[in-house]
């Protein structure tokens, strides 16, 4: 793990804020898509792509790169915006999201865009693929430092396939696999506790043989420390349950499951009329700068 200075944290927070603004603009241009998850994962994506991952945007197929598998494919606006900031694609192209002929498919497609490691959208299968990648990396080199990261939603954990994959990763003691769960507490139909309760989530992962950490998903230093620890865990896969605030960064959208699957302009109207949702979101983010506070967790 590289040293994370305070100036790095500030830089990453600023990048995350810019990614959030891009997400709003992309969703408004597309007229459909998911808002809450992409916004609340912006801090973690900024940390991953600009501090943690060993990757090379100029050589996306570099065989020794770390892999980032986005299992929750529907939050791809945050992946696309982050890849654009990293130089995988021109930023102007972000506004083609979900349009005919675009490389930015509504759910990610591996062969469409460099930097996208796998096609995803149907939930649960990304973790299985990440397990396969980690297995293959270890077959190639038992002492590999090549890491596989997998980002899942929390609603996604309803899928049986997640637990099939978790069981296999535990059996195989995949030290080079780190899963990050976006624990934002919402899914399309409601709060996760109402749709399908997940707790005790820590105990579930532990029972499957995983090393478990829980962090504030908006505290970049805390997440970074957890990833560092996960990398050092021997003979166990690691999961980081990142507690996030759904739609983090736009306070009038936050914590509301109705923002899971709607873009600005088509979301719930009780706090902001639809005609003003995009402008209000961008204004909030622009005035916020890099000031999302770690303490703003509960």
């Amino acid at each position, binding site marked *: 793990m590289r040293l994370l200075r305070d100036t790095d944290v500030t830089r990453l927070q600023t990048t995350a804020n810019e990614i959030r603004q891009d997400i709003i603009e992309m969703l408004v241009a597309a007229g459909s898509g998911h808002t809450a998850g992409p916004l609340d994962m912006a801090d973690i994506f900024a940390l991953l792509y600009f501090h943690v991952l060993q990757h090379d945007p100029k050589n996306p197929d570099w*065989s020794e790169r770390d*892999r980032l*598998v986005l299992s929750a494919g529907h939050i791809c606006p945050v992946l696309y915006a982050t890849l654009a900031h990293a130089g995988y694609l021109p930023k102007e192209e972000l506004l083609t999201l979900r349009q005919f002929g675009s490389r930015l498919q509504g759910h990610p*497609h*591996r*062969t469409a865009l460099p930097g996208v*490691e*796998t*096609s*995803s*959208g*149907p939930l*649960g*299968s*990304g973790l*299985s*693929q*990440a*397990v*396969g*990648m*980690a*297995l*293959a*990396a270890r*077959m*190639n080199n038992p002492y590999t430092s090549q890491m596989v990261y997998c980002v899942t939603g929390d609603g996604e954990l309803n899928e*049986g*396939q997640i637990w*099939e*994959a978790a*069981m*296999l990763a535990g*059996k*195989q003691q995949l030290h080079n696999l780190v899963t990050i769960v976006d624990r934002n507490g919402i899914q399309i139909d409601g709060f996760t506790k109402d749709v399908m309760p997940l707790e005790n989530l820590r105990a579930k992962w532990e029972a499957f043989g995983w090393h478990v950490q829980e962090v504030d998903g908006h505290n970049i230093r805390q997440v970074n420390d957890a990833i560092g620890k996960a990398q050092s865990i021997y003979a166990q896969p690691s999961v980081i349950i990142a507690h996030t605030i759904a739609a983090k960064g736009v306070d009038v959208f936050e914590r509301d499951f109705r923002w899971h699957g709607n873009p600005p302009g088509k979301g719930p109207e009780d706090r902001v009329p639809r005609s003003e949702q995009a402008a209000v979101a961008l204004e909030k983010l622009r005035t916020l700068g890099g000031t999302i506070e770690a303490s703003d967790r509960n």
Partner: protein
Amino acid sequence: MLHDSITPDLLSTEPEMAHTRDGYGQGLVAAAEDDDRVVALCADLTGSTRTHWFAEQFPERFIQVGVAEQNMASVASGMAALGKVPFIASYAMFSPGRSWEQIRTTIGYNEANVKIIGAHAGVSVGPDGATHQAIEDIALMRVLPGMVVLAPADKHEANRMVRFAAQHEGPVYIRIGREKTPVVTTAEASFAYGKACKVFSGEDATTALLSTGTLLYNTLKAAEQLVAQGLAVDVYHFGTVKPLDTEALDTITAQCERIVTVEEHQVAGGFGSAVAEYVAETNPTQVIRVGVHDQYGQSGTPEELITHYGMDIDSIMKAANR
């Protein structure tokens, strides 16, 4: 006249019987000896799919995933992403039967270099009954863009197809059976990917029998008797169901008035459907499909079931004479 890929005395003697799954298991070991990228995964059916020979010889390249076919498909996709050539084996009813969406998204759409072995396909699974008799797998796989679909005639061809699949870039589905079936081809024959083989030539035939999979033996026996009755027929073996050999079909429809397709599969969506779709669009010719007609299987002996569902020698002859 039998093609030289066919055992010369096949029709005059009792055929040697062997498992197509043995051909897969032996072919997999041979493929792995030639290419260290080859890995295998199995969902708790290692012995009955014959993946155990590979597992014993290459334990470090074998992944036992437990009873989890959906996970197996996607884990294999991830391994392929790092350059492995994974073979995944289970019963066809579970893989691709249960794991179809994972195969579609993470292998097909994702263009992952994964080889899918569907064992225990067809009603000839026998006593296990309908839950374990996959008669929809060709349809499920041939509808996926880019998926190669292969159905070997016997043990030797299963072996050849597995070794071909290991060197072919892209997803491949190979369906194999449970029971011993007649050894129809010679051990020395070669596999011509995407090419139908005219295995039996009649004199100026006006009827063509097109077979895929292990029913080739019944089809050849039917042809022999049809010729004895005075009906000239040709027999073609389509080891490759997809991509379909349309050149062969063009030749057949230019010459024949009637096509009979034979497969141990639902007639809806299977090999016969693929033939009928192409022929209807190019040179409309009567296509009579021998196979299971919109029913589930049941327990019984393989012979009882093949006869009950109309895929025995008499049924093929009746279709040709209809």
